[in-house]
């Protein structure tokens, strides 16, 4: 995997943390940081996203990164090893071109834009070429700002339709 190649060329600050795959139908991965921040990364099957388009042959998963146990309290300290770890988990999970990932950042704590930017950076640093595309959307639902990213394989046979459907998501209601 290219991430390992990158690690051999850089210092330990970029080295991914060890992670464990816990399995279950939600495809759970766990890792912890040197600051004892515990992360849980899930890929939850989300077929409902494209249910209205049965002609689309696609397996969508919502990638959810949950964080807990911050012993220092307050904001989670910045850690340059978290991004490469999430990239490694992402690469371990994604196996074939009919899979696609949806990532959601909401405005519950006002940091949705920063979080969305961070995810984009992690995704771009996956270093596996341009095999997957990222399509970003900002959806406003009342006073809520929701950043959505869809990451499908560019080689998906219905790539253009998948992108079109995603771009119009939420617009039908307007």
């Amino acid at each position, binding site marked *: 995997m290219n991430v390992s190649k990158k690690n051999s060329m850089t210092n330990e600050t970029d080295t991914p943390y*060890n992670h464990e795959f816990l399995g279950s139908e939600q495809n759970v991965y766990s890792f912890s940081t040197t600051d004892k921040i515990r992360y*849980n990364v899930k890929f939850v099957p*989300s077929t*409902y996203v494209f249910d209205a388009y049965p002609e689309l042959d696609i397996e969508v998963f919502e990638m959810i990164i949950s964080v*807990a146990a911050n012993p220092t309290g307050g904001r989670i300290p910045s850690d340059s090893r978290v991004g490469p770890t999430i990239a490694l988990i992402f690469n371990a999970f994604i196996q074939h071109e009919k899979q696609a990932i949806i990532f959601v950042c*909401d405005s519950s704590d006002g940091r949705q834009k920063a979080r969305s930017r961070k995810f984009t950076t992690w995704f771009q640093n996956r270093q596996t070429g341009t095999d997957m595309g990222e399509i970003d959307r900002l959806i406003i639902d009342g006073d809520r700002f929701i950043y959505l990213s869809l990451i499908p394989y560019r080689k998906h046979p219905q790539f253009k339709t998948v992108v079109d459907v995603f771009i119009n998501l939420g617009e039908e209601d307007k």
Partner: protein
Amino acid sequence: METPTKPLRGMEIVRKLLEVKEQAQRDFEESLRTDPEVQAVYERLEKKLDDKRD
């Protein structure tokens, strides 16, 4: 006979994605508090990190 479920559309999908995400965070916090297997996984990962630093 069961009525087929109507596919979600538009904002219903977006709200469902948010709901699933929020539930996942709650489930994770709960599992850390109550599931010894999950606690053991993190303790093992943290021990490995501590051992590397020694």
